[in-house]
């Protein structure tokens, strides 16, 4: 089984989905001849042609609207928005149309589309290229929000997103695009949406995270184990629908929880997870839940970026605080 980067794994999943199902097509800016600004769609244009790998004008709203129209007609469009900072003009299409076409028509029309966008900081990108605004999408009934954290999960989750009969926003942590390789079998098997991935088991502390932060969290968990603290690490993978069961079962076991995300703290999706723990597992808690998150500030430009991003040190500090609480 060859080792692949996340970019390669996503490319493989797109190619697999297109080969398996003639209804699948990809569209977006610079995704055809150029293979995408991150090369995620490399080679697809040559293999599947201009009707299925569609270079679009510079028109995020238009691309998303076209995807809604194609999806309502039974195609399975995978639209790429180059960076999450540019998804905002698609929100009307996502919120008013994609997410509710099934509801509005009582199932007569549906919207099996995927909108992919790289997101998150840490690669010293220009202004507006590093935000993590996933939480706003989690408050849109009818949407699914999926975030992979490894090449193999990216492959399986993207296949599931494309095959899903409802609209899925697939956010790719671009810091992990080429950060490491992992064995990825191009076997066409998808990973179910709506299920957390258990990245590490442990009985002392639960750390819940998603996307690129899994890497800091796993390092922190390794450091904690040296101190004799066994952290359980949960990668949420699908923010909506959320697999609370896995999180609650873990917290009931450990009694301690740290939630880690890159997005701003207030109204971040960590707040929802903390609320669910408070609603359903409060009496299991041995310590207050702690959040390690981005600050409630505008995402800084690259020179201050590292000060914004949650670090392993911040995660360790939160873990220690939670462990010390009685």
């Amino acid at each position, binding site marked *: 089984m060859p080792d692949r980067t996340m970019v390669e794994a996503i490319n493989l999943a797109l190619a697999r989905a297109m080969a398996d199902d003639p209804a699948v097509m990809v569209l977006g800016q610079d995704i055809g001849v150029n293979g995408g600004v991150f090369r995620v769609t490399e080679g697809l244009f040559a293999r599947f042609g201009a009707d299925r790998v569609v270079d679009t004008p510079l028109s995020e709203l238009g691309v998303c609207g076209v995807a809604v129209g194609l999806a309502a*007609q039974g195609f399975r469009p995978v639209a790429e928005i180059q960076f999450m900072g540019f998804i905002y003009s698609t929100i009307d299409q996502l919120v008013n149309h994609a997410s509710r076409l099934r509801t509005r028509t009582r*199932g007569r029309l549906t919207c099996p589309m995927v909108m992919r966008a790289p997101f998150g900081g840490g690669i010293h990108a220009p202004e507006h290229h590093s935000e993590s605004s996933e939480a706003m999408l989690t408050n849109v009934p009818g949407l699914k929000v999926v975030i992979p954290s490894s090449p193999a999960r990216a492959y399986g989750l993207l296949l599931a997103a494309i095959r899903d009969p409802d609209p899925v926003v697939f956010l790719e942590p671009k810091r992990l695009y080429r950060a490491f390789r992992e064995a990825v079998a191009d076997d066409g098997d998808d990973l179910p949406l709506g299920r957390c991935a258990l990245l590490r088991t442990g009985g002392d502390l639960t750390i819940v995270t998603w996307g690129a932060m899994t890497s800091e969290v796993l390092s922190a968990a390794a450091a904690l184990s040296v101190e004799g603290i066994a952290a359980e690490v949960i990668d949420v993978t699908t923010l909506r629908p959320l697999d609370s069961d896995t999180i609650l079962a873990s917290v009931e076991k450990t009694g301690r929880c740290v939630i880690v995300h890159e997005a701003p703290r207030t109204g971040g999706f960590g707040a929802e997870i903390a609320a669910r723990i408070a609603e359903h597992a409060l009496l299991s808690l041995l310590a207050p839940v702690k959040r390690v998150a981005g600050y409630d500030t505008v995402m800084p430009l690259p020179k201050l970026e590292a000060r914004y991003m949650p670090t392993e040190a911040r995660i360790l500090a939160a873990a220690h605080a939670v462990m010390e609480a009685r």
Partner: protein
Amino acid sequence: MEQAIDIPFTQFLAADGSVVADATPFPADPRKLVALYRALVRTRSFDLRAVELQRTGRLGTYASSLGQEAVAVGVGAAMDRTDVLLPSFREHGAQLLRGVTMVELFRFWGGDERGSDYAGPREDFPVSIPIGSHAPQAAGVAFALRLRGGGRAAVCVLGDGATSKGDFYEAMNLAGVWRLPVVFVVSNNQWAISLPRARQTAAETIAQKAIAAGFEGRQVDGNDVLAVTHAVSEALRMARDGGGPTLIEALTYRLADHTTADDSRRYRDENEVVRQWKNEPLTRLRLYLTARGHWSRDEEEALKAECAKEVGAAAALYLADEAQPVTAMFDYLYAELPSELIAQRMEAVAEADRDA
């Protein structure tokens, strides 16, 4: 700086029912013209009853198409059954011609999602309340129709206000560059709620906005159903033949308030409305048909009675609707209800049961 832009304008019938002096020959098969007239009357009958139901608390906020029936009826008449309509919210006439039932329309405007589950035109879009946001979707539908082949086309109807939005420009741009089989019809009723056409855009015509997108824009008298039908038919023929999109600006007038929640006296001179009544679309076609012996007073009375009966029966059916179960909120959200929502669904059911 004035730039001369040549926008073709089509009109066959003048307000008094005469054929305009320089009209090109037009298809004048009396059976087809009578069918158009019947559709106009049917639409207005529906409209009047809908307003009446709203005024008596039995329908939600409603957007009347009074005065603009010819735009929607012309669109509906020009389209093939297999084409796909993406309407704004004032195209009741087009929807009725395409097989959406009056009961379904009442349901939607009465606040029941089942009203958008059209039994007839299964691929037609539900009305788009967010202005213009269906325009790029029309490009997507047209893209799909072209990929599948078969000479089908999409028709997107928008208001004059929508043409100020980016959605409209992005859709036009995509449709132009991809030469998509789509027709954009702007029902220019001169008012976007309180904003008059003159303050909506400095462009001399809305039709000319197509020029920048690389395809033809034309104007028609939107109160002349023959002109609308003709222009949309021509545009659809071109779209089917691979000739790409067309923008048709249909010049009409909103005789009603924006919706039943609006009071246009706050911003519009009532004398203007009185003057515009002279241009309304039903009279001219009736006068034309009557003058040529294709329509009689008896037929008029019979049609009115027939429409009243149809509208009354539809209203009765709508008013007798059983409410949707509370579970409907959840059961059409996704193909399969995510397990995290099962508890909420049970909570809603329990609350409804308690209140029953």
